[in-house]
């Protein structure tokens, strides 16, 4: 079983704790000039997303988590699974609700996503930072109102709800930031 010494700790390293895979968010080395050294780390549980703090005696080893980020193309969902394909090998993989979670509303067919695999199975899915989506439903646009800064909810083809400026019309394509869930700009389609 591969393992990492605390000396190798750094942001992004994937380790196993209490049977779950974690990623190191922050690593602080604390050591009195004379005396025991410790690594105080913040780690994110890759299954739940929760961040917790841990302390390790420096020099100790922790089991490595077999976690790999892979670029995959989103194909479709059958309602239960979301299907992705490796564009090189054409190998397909199905991610369940637990892995896709709230990101489901940003998945648009053909988009390239990062699928994080743990022991070969999908653990989480990260959509592109920006996606272009068609508005399927929103209140009629207020023409010319580009200055008041007001917003209204708009429903996207993928199920996401995004606050958009008042002048945006149903049927338009907009660019969204998937990290914040915010409207970025109109996309010209001609």
């Amino acid at each position: 079983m591969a393992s990492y010494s605390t000396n190798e700790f750094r942001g992004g390293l994937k380790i196993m704790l209490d049977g779950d895979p974690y990623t190191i968010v922050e690593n602080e080395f604390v050591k009195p000039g004379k005396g025991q050294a410790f690594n105080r780390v913040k780690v994110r549980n890759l299954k739940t997303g929760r961040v917790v703090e841990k302390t390790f005696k420096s020099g100790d080893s922790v089991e490595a988590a077999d976690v790999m980020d892979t670029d995959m193309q989103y194909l479709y969902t059958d309602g239960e699974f979301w299907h992705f394909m490796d564009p090189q090998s054409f190998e397909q993989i199905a991610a369940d609700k637990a892995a896709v979670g709230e990101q489901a509303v940003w998945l648009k067919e053909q988009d390239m996503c990062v699928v994080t695999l743990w022991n070969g199975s999908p653990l989480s899915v990260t959509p592109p930072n920006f996606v272009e989506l068609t508005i399927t439903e929103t209140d009629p646009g207020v023409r010319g109102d580009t200055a008041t800064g007001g917003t209204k909810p708009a429903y996207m083809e993928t199920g996401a709800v995004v606050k958009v400026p008042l002048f945006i019309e149903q049927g338009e394509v907009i660019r969204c930031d998937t990290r914040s869930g915010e409207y970025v700009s109109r996309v010209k389609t001609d």
Partner: protein
Amino acid sequence: MTPEWRPSADLAMLRARARLLRDIRRYFAEAGVLEVETPVLSQAAVTDPAIHSMQLAEPVAGCRFLHTSPEFPMKRLLCAGTGDIYQICRVFRGAELGRHHNPEFTLLEWYRLGYDMQRLMTDVEQLLRSVLPSTMTLGPSRFLSYEQAIFEATGLSLARLDIAAIQDALNTAGVPCPPAMPNAIDPWLDLLMSSVVTPQFSDDRLTFIYHYPASQASLARLNPDNPSVAERFEVYIGPMELGNGFHELQDADEQRARFQSDLAKRQQLSLPAMPMDTHLLDALGSGLPDCAGVAVGLDRVLMAFYTKTEIADVISFGAERA
């Protein structure tokens, strides 16, 4: 991100470092303390289980270890009759890397004949005040015993402190306990000090902690009136440790016993055995003058004086660019 070839410190910091070195040398020149140099590479190494010596893959003339501090050869110089001495040198410590740790760093170490712990703490304060940049002010220093420092931060009494009580105090402070720890109180005390006690020290002043437990005496003599504590101190600026000093142990037999106890601890921890410095023991045997000595990390002094958060910010090329 600046390109990787560029220094990790800015040019103003490089000038500040040069000024600091000049001012320190002036302080010691005025005090009549002799500047010395001792070998970086040696045959013997530190036995302290918490300090890792780097070593050469191909030793030359039996010299194998990079020094982690110039303490042993400087004491041999004292035994040879130099009188007060100081040294500014780069030292090397394995497995130390972080915001406050670079694998090689600059240490200022000095020894004063006839000084005790109290007088040396005053000397440290005077030196640091004399090299303070005009942009920085330091309030009155605090002097706390190890016992007082723990009591102030946690309300716990050192005499009644056991591992379970330390674990409770760590939990209260939101510090998770490490999964694997040796069944000894000192590592737990180290964690309590470095993650609960010292982070509460107020900024912009020096805090001196003295009278460490005898089990952490290192190379300090024990207090003659209370042998449960050592004549050892540490100095902090804000919450950051700057240095460590001793009223030096003169007894060669006691020093040998401490080296052997260190080596026994190394064996328990499956750490490599280190060749103890028998030249130091012989020198102590021939007589070390009554003296006190201290080592101060100059990189951290610069970090504190110029409010830098990363040690690489004060070093021309931090480890990641070296």
